[in-house]
């Protein structure tokens, strides 16, 4: 009797709590523009997978940081996708030209002002670049523009940038560098990390670390104004929660939908999903410190053992394409005539026999939680290697612990994803195929010479031919085993319009809006 009463009382209490919650929740939706009632609030809400950590573009190094910053700040030039190819177009630079092989001239747009009302000048650009190059400042961006030798301003709007070597890469590197307002940097000090001042179509309202970043439209923007009055980025690190928030309508756009959830999203009548392959090549890096790895036939055997179609179709849900080159499609000089790397386990076994492989342990490493389905890919590939008779010792680590072990050469073969946002392939090639820097220890003087030549070639047509030659050699010699190009999956509520997924994995929503 007593128990019955207790249960009844508990049920009533729970019911009351849920009812109260429901009431408060719907009120919430109206106030904050949440839920499905959000159309009139003119606010777009984006769920992002990580905190930007700093909004000073010179210090940002996370994907969400790049995405959020591209609404607040602008670079001289930026990537635009035209006919499936990435091109560099002027943003703050109205014109840019190559005066001689060491000098670029930039003419800035007239009438551009920062969010604090200060006009953009060549000095602002000079300040930004020099602060990044200052070793004391310790900016992760310095790697993109380290070739800069001197910056000369001429009047308010003209700027000459001289490089140390004849280089075609500077423009691509500058696309990574948003311009900041020098006065605000000085005035705000450390606060600039949370209140950046740029020239972008949106300006910062509030950055609450690990919670949200709120932006509002900058009314004096020089170009086409942003569509929404406000944009809010919600930081939701857990994949399943980001998806749940999208399903419930708490957010309009959610980045990085896990591959195994794509079908669920596609089947949801309220949701759409955008899938695109990116400029990131996911591959295995062979470590030449291992005697077996030094043999081309052994590397060939490993490559033949991998069923790339199966990885793409079964683990990644067919959301990308198997690799056919060390470069991703869209980059300049991508060799589109190379076939997808062959899968032939029988031939792999023959090659292993031919080189006299004795079953020595091959230490293999893969990260977990950094790339789409990375753990599963690592496990599946290890299984494929073992199927042809390679004795694999697989270690899967969280990314922050994994990277240093790859740097110290602990693994004989490891999995990594390398993006070339500069759209000049040699930027990501240097770390893997140039004998001075190659992570696995690959060295081929011919490749070195060709890369050197390509870097100094300004003429695109000539450079493209050289890039293709390099890809052919690497396809043959296999210092790395490209698998596929990292897919980028973005979920949106039905009714979101004007959103374009990008090859560079940025989420840019200045033209996107929600119409319920």
């Amino acid at each position, binding site marked *: 009797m007593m128990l019955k009463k207790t249960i009844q009382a508990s049920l009533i209490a729970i019911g009351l709590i849920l009812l109260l919650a429901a009431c408060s929740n719907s009120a919430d939706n109206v106030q904050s523009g949440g839920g499905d009632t959000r159309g009139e609030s003119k606010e777009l809400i984006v769920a992002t997978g990580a905190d930007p950590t700093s909004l000073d573009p010179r210090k940002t190094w996370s994907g969400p940081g790049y995405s959020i910053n591209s609404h607040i700040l602008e670079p001289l030039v930026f990537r635009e996708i035209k006919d499936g190819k990435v091109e560099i177009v002027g943003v703050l630079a109205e014109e840019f030209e190559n005066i001689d092989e060491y000098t670029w001239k930039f003419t800035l747009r007239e009438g551009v002002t920062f969010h604090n009302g200060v006009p953009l000048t060549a000095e602002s650009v000079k300040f930004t670049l020099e602060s990044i190059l200052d070793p004391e400042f310790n900016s992760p961006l310095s790697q993109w523009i380290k070739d800069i030798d001197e910056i000369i301003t001429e009047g308010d709007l003209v700027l000459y940038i001289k490089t140390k070597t004849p280089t075609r890469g500077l423009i691509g590197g500058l696309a990574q560098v948003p311009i900041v307002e020098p006065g605000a940097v000085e005035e705000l000090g450390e606060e600039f990390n949370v209140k950046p001042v740029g020239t972008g179509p949106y300006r910062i309202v509030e950055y609450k670390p690990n919670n949200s970043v709120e932006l509002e439209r900058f009314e004096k923007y020089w170009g086409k104004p942003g569509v929404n009055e406000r944009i809010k980025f919600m930081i939701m690190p857990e994949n399943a929660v980001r998806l749940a928030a999208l399903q419930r309508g708490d957010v309009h756009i959610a980045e990085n939908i896990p591959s195994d959830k794509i079908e669920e999203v596609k089947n949801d009548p309220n949701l759409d999903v955008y899938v695109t392959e990116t400029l990131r090549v996911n591959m295995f890096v062979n470590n030449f410190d291992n005697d077996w790895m030094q043999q081309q036939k052994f590397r060939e055997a490993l490559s033949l053992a991998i069923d790339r179609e199966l990885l793409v179709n079964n683990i990644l849900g067919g959301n990308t394409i198997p690799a056919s080159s060390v470069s991703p499609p869209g980059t300049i000089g991508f060799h589109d005539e190379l076939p997808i790397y062959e899968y032939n386990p029988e031939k792999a076994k023959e090659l292993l026999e031919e080189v006299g492989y004795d079953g020595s342990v091959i230490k293999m490493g893969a990260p977990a939680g950094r790339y789409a389905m990375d753990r599963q890919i690592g496990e599946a590939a290890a299984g494929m290697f073992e199927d042809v008779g390679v004795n694999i010792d697989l270690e899967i680590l969280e990314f922050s612990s994994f990277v240093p072990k790859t740097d110290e050469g602990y693994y004989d073969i490891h999995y*990594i994803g390398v993006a070339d946002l500069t759209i000049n392939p040699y930027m990501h090639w240097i*770390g893997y195929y140039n004998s001075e820097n190659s992570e696995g220890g690959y060295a081929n003087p011919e490749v070195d010479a060709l890369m050197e030549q390509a870097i100094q070639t300004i003429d695109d047509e000539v450079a493209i031919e050289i890039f293709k030659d390099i890809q052919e050699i690497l396809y043959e010699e296999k210092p790395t085993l490209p698998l596929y190009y990292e897919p980028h999956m973005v979920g949106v509520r039905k009714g979101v319009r004007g959103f374009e997924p990008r090859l560079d994995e940025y989420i840019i929503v200045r033209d996107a809006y929600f119409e319920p």
Partner: protein
Amino acid sequence: MQAVIVLIGASAIAFVLLRIIPGDPASLMLSENATEEEIQQMREQMGLNLPIWEQYINYIKDIVVLDFGNSINRGLPSMQLILEHLPATALLVFWAMVIAIVIAIPLGMYAAVKKNSLSDYIVSVLALIGQSVPSYWLGMMLILFIAVNLNLLPTSGYGSWSHIIMPAFTLAIYQLALIARLMRSSTLEVLNHDYIRTARAKGLPEIVVIFKHVFKNALIPTITMIGLQTGQLLGGAIITEFIFSWPGIGFLTVQSIQAQDYPMIQSLVIISAIVFVVINLLVDIAYAVIDRRIVVDS
């Protein structure tokens, strides 16, 4: 004095452990394309190229003047970041504890009074389940069921009180079960004491016996547990905050570990140690309030 030793010990262990585990903040900050030379340069600028003992001496020197270092990840002073994140965690822990105490104490006492009845068994089984359920799983289930399917509460985030219900409940469930079980056993123990028999023999109504004599005495071990568990909640908050995107210390901890943000993690350890020390002190004081003999004894 003891507190100071705890703090020094905790900071030293954290310092050494961080540098023993594989990981390198410099290579994480640069992209996958960075060369070894660039990584080395970044390491030097972070002061990570120095021998570990030299790094530790520098660290202690800074701490003495209350400089806890800047977060590598964010470039802001680590203590400032912790203080910004602390209120969210305090709020969550407070409500989790309120939920746990308000439900667990009456439940535990009820189960003890009704020992070996059906309701006692139900409470015991529920308590066992509560202690066994991983908060990760529970959190996800709450989000899917209450937020997505029933559309009653927001999935995650921070702001209104509707945001706090699910994370607080997720965080509370383990403590709730633990406290209920402890309250049950300590109530049973007290019920067997002579003074309870005397009280009943005097003809006091059962309700007076329970609330006046049993409750207060059964509460003492429970209070110790509540105090210690409040410290534990900080640990539990790591997972809960991560799932519910709750911008507190736990979320900050996960993020700092992922980025191998040494100064940030070290400061977080020191703060956690301070919180533990303070909570233990409060527990000791609470004893004295409930049971005057403890002051006399000590």
